[in-house]
């Protein structure tokens, strides 16, 4: 036995070594491209053209970021993206919540049909609804407004929110609502005062997810909000590319700025998702 233990430990060390040998290339390929973008954003424009390529920057500067915000109206685009993403999140949650409650707490004729409907809707090609939505916005004079994007985004945020929140609501035990109703609470009262507070982790996870998807959206934004006043970040980035020149330093800085909030949110979302899942099991 005394000799077996060190042998087992050695075997374990060896297997950890093998795993890391495989993990390192995976990690490099996953984060390498983004690190290269980060590096490009942090070096002066002149150093980008240096040959041979510098893998580690010899000088680091924030001039690209300063330029973006001082001269390229990046604050404006940032605000536009933020308003559209918040608007989509609020609208998506409010519109979807009662449906999730219905799916989670009622059995009714057509329940399965409606659930399948919400599942299938996001699978229709975006281009199939893009043109009519463009036309609707054009006719109603909503083209180039925040509202046009918020309404268009509800085509994919609502089905998603309905499904996600139905899952969270159904995982919460019904007994507490029943107790509240026995105590004289109305159905609405039980929903607002009992179910909603316990479902907060799940609802916030849904909210964050809608926010991220809306923040990242490009196709609708490129079609419905071309005007500079309402242009969102993913669309604004394309304007650094012209027919003949690309300002890679600015573009890289822009890409980093657009990605950072989402990366940070995802760290939060991971925790929220786990919290939302365990909330149903623990209580």
């Amino acid at each position, binding site marked *: 036995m005394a000799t077996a233990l060190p042998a087992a430990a050695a075997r374990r060390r060896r297997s950890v070594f093998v*795993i*890391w040998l495989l*993990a390192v290339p*995976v990690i490099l390929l*996953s*984060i390498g*491209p*983004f690190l*290269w*973008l980060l590096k*490009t954003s942090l070096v002066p424009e002149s150093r980008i053209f240096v040959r*041979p*390529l510098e893998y580690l920057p010899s000088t680091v500067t924030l001039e690209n970021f300063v330029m973006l915000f001082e001269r390229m109206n990046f604050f404006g685009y940032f605000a536009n993206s933020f308003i559209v993403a918040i608007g989509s999140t609020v609208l998506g949650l*409010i519109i979807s919540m*009662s*449906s999730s409650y*219905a799916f*989670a*707490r*009622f*059995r*009714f004729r057509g329940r*399965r049909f*409606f659930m*399948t409907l*919400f*599942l*299938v809707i996001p699978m229709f*090609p*975006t*281009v*199939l*609804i*893009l*043109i*009519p*939505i463009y*036309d*609707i916005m054009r006719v109603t004079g909503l083209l180039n407004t925040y509202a046009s994007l918020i309404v268009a985004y509800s*085509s994919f945020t*609502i089905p998603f929110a309905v499904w996600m929140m*139905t*899952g969270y609501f159904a995982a919460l*035990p*019904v007994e507490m609502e029943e107790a509240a109703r026995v105590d004289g609470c109305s*159905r609405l009262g039980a929903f607002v005062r009992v179910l909603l507070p316990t479902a907060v982790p799940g609802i916030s996870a849904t909210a964050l997810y809608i926010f*991220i998807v809306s923040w990242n959206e*490009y*196709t609708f934004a490129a*079609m419905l909000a071309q005007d500079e006043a309402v242009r969102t970040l*993913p669309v604004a*980035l*394309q304007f650094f*590319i012209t027919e003949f020149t690309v300002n*890679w330093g600015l*573009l*890289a800085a822009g*890409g980093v700025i657009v990605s950072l909030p*989402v*990366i940070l949110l995802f760290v939060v979302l991971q925790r929220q998702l786990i919290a939302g899942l365990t909330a149903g099991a623990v209580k």
Partner: protein
Amino acid sequence: MARRQAGPPPATPVRRARRRPRDLLLPYLLLLPACGVVALVVAFPIAQSIGYSLHHYNLREPDNVYFSGLDNYVRALTDEMFWRALRATAIWVGAVLPIQFVVGMAIAVLMNRAFPGRLVLRASVLLPWVIPSAVVALLWRWLLDGNLGVVNDLLIRVGLIDTGVPWLNDPSTAMAVVVLAMTWHGMPFFALMLLAALQAVPAEMYEAAHLDGASALQRFRYITWPSIIDTIRTTTLLRIIWLANSIEIIWIMTAGGPNFATTTLPVVTFFEAVRGLDFGYASAVSVLLALILLVVVHLYIRQMRKDD
């Protein structure tokens, strides 16, 4: 009553005893807001699209709109461009999907092992998925740049090529590199879905098989594979639909070029709508795309029902 979480979550009725008419109606009233908005932003536009596809409708000549029957469809189906785009769509889906699956599977198996530092691996693997598609497309344009791109630089250093290759400007390499970018972007989704499936396999089953003397290959064949096959089917169908619909990566990297080498069906419609303003023809192509995808969606629903 046996309840399982897969598929539509089961309802837990608040009270089933006394059913007043108002209570029977209530769930439908609750569905109204979401269904109303969805009718407005999805159902109505789809009907519109079908209507447009039967009209001559070009925004350049807004006064010259008329019913043209199946003209747009005939134009599409007799246009060589349509068939090339269909082929490009098939290549696009057919290339990205298997690569994402195989590599995603390998990463999932790796992430399923308990080892020090696995959180670093998981966080890194997630990153490509989190970055917005528009940034992913620009990022890969930059990596693949013919003159300044780091991909060329690395390949030259290793000695695989002598001079920089203009990957995105060459019709013979453009598709391969947009596939590369999309694979990078979508892989984490596959890896995470498969990882979740792997973690749901009870460890005791492996232990029992191990005691019975099953080889690693047998354990995979008889325990792992049957446990995850449904997840694989669901994820694959979902990815086919998403890939066949996706525009951003291709549009931003190549706009369908060079020489239409990367023009898939959604790119055709986007191009016709945005550049050509030919809403009638663009609608017809998107309806055709939707019809093709309907087959996959049908399979997906069947699979979901089976999981349920």
